[in-house]
């Protein structure tokens, strides 16, 4: 651990530096175009998105970690393939969200919204590569604080304000509980480095019960971020109240960041307590799947339905975590990639329909295929992928997760998962029934979708199909990330 700056250090945080600069540039342009709202509405979303894609491209070129990876910044940051893959996931979600947001009247002119989106993505990037509890805590808060503001961004809208305050209160309480767990970890081991914790916890010189207590406390905070039951209460309210692009971002990138942290902390710091936390995670998975799917059946708002479905999906992904194996980790990352494009597409379409019909009821989708055949087909692909029907992305993701659990002999968990997948399929098909068989509803005013929105939807649809058909590149990405986590 030398104190001199090395090029490696700067390479390890290149994407974060890029995101910060991009956020500042956006705020400057927001000022330059203060009197020209049309310019802001037209270009800010594009600038965000293109900027992120550029950062992704450059960091794939210059800041790709080599080999086993290294620990940078005095042990704060782990520079490895897992961090890299997760960064790519978060940044693609942010780029797509920025494009979708340019369809949303109240957001597209607001430079500060895009800046908040970027800062929150920066926090997620650091979450995925944090190797120290101090940085991990700071990264989680850097992610959460902009998200609270984004959820309550529409200060003239009662529902958005309510979503913001509910999200904030849940987040503040759970993160304080998690932090108490962190302080106990520091107390028990005398270190905050995740990679040193492993040996400290394995030494077996801890009083009985304390490691267990710490794991439970920490899981409260992580459970909130991934919206797993019983820490899911915020999700339906926040998803339905927050601006729709924000809800899409919350359900994909924020959840993925939670899982990135969960994988690293559980499988590295608490590797010795595997027999305990796999049971806890399996219980959380079962609860999330049951609660998510059964409550989704009763929903009339499409955004609430997607919220409960996202809780259920957290449950499916947790099956992969509970497997506690290399295949399990791989399946989690694969699932997150597939879920990202699928759910962003679904929320993107809901965003457009909401602005046209003025309601987020499922009935607002009635006869969508006759109003616009393309949108109907896109929603069909997204919903079937969520339901896990081949050849769409969601099928392979579910297959891998279940395979990982079978490999470890968690047959009962797989049975619960498969049973829940059938229940899930029922309500997805119910929405499709409304789209294809019900008489079309009146559209209040027909906004043509902006080019940005179209491109984002095309990218998502291409993703849904490609991840379904063309398995190899995504699998090898997930594999690279997995081996970086399992190297220890």
């Amino acid at each position, binding site marked *: 651990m030398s104190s001199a700056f090395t090029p490696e250090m700067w390479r390890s945080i290149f994407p974060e530096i890029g995101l910060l600069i991009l956020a500042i540039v956006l705020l400057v342009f927001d000022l330059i175009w203060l009197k020209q709202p049309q310019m802001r509405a037209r270009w800010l979303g594009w600038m965000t998105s293109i900027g992120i894609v550029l950062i992704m491209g450059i960091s794939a070129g210059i800041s790709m970690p080599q080999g086993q990876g290294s620990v940078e910044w005095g042990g704060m940051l782990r520079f490895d393939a897992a961090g890299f893959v997760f960064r790519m996931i978060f940044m693609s979600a942010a780029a797509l969200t920025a494009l979708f947001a340019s369809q949303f009247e109240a957001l597209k002119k607001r430079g500060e919204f895009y800046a908040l989106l970027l800062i929150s993505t920066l926090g997620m990037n650091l979450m995925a590569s944090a190797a120290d509890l101090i940085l991990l805590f700071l990264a989680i808060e850097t992610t959460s604080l902009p998200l609270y503001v984004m959820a309550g961004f529409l200060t003239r809208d009662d529902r958005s304000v309510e979503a913001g305050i509910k999200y904030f209160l849940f987040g503040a309480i759970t993160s304080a509980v998690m932090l108490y767990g962190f302080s106990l970890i520091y107390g028990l081991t*005398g270190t905050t480095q995740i990679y040193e914790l492993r040996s400290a916890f394995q030494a077996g010189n801890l009083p009985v019960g304390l490691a267990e207590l710490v794991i439970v406390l920490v899981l409260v905070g992580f459970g909130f971020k991934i919206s797993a039951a019983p820490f899911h209460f915020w999700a339906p309210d926040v998803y339905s109240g927050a601006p729709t692009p924000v809800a899409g971002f919350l359900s994909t990138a924020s959840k993925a960041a939670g899982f990135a942290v969960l994988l690293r902390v559980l499988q590295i710091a608490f590797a010795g307590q595997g027999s305990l936390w796999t049971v806890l995670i399996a219980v959380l998975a079962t609860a999330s799947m049951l609660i998510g799917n059964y409550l989704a059946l009763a929903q009339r708002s499409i955004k609430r339905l997607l919220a409960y479905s996202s809780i259920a999906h957290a449950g499916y992904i947790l099956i992969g975590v509970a497997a506690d194996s290399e295949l399990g980790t791989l399946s989690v990352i694969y699932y997150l990639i597939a879920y990202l494009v699928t759910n962003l597409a679904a929320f993107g379409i809901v965003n457009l329909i909401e602005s046209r019909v003025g309601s987020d009821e499922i009935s607002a989708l009635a006869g969508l295929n006759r109003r616009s055949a393309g949108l109907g087909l896109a929603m069909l692909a997204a919903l079937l992928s969520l339901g896990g029907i081949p050849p769409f992305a969601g099928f392979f993701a579910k297959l891998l997760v279940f395979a990982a659990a079978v490999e470890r002999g968690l047959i009962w968990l797989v049975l619960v998962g498969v049973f829940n997948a059938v229940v899930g399929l029922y309500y997805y098909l119910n929405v499709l029934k409304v789209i294809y068989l019900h008489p079309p509803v009146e559209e209040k005013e027909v906004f043509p979708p902006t080019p940005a929105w179209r491109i984002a939807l095309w990218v998502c649809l291409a993703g849904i199909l490609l991840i379904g058909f063309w398995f190899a590149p995504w699998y090898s990405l997930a594999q690279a990330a997995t081996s970086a986590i399992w190297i220890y």
Partner: protein
Amino acid sequence: MIPLAWYLIFSAALFCIGLFGALARKNAVAILMGVELMLNAVNVNLIAFWHYYAQMRSTPYVHGLAFTTMVFVVAAAEVAVGLALVISAYRRRQTPVVDELTLLKG
């Protein structure tokens, strides 16, 4: 010299009071105060442990102190964002009471 355990019992009590306050109170500002108590319990913990380890080891480790500083900074930022959200809710609905925010349910 006060033993480490006393600090830990104190911080555990503080944490429980804070958690109870955060879960039992209906007023958003009171919930925030509960959260602040919880964060203070964390700080007491961290400083007590840091002091313990500083005495045990000859080389000074600053992890505990750095962590505490971060908790301070983040707590301040969190309160700033939280109060802004409470105010924006108060402007729309004329109430800081969370139970009366019932537009979103089901």
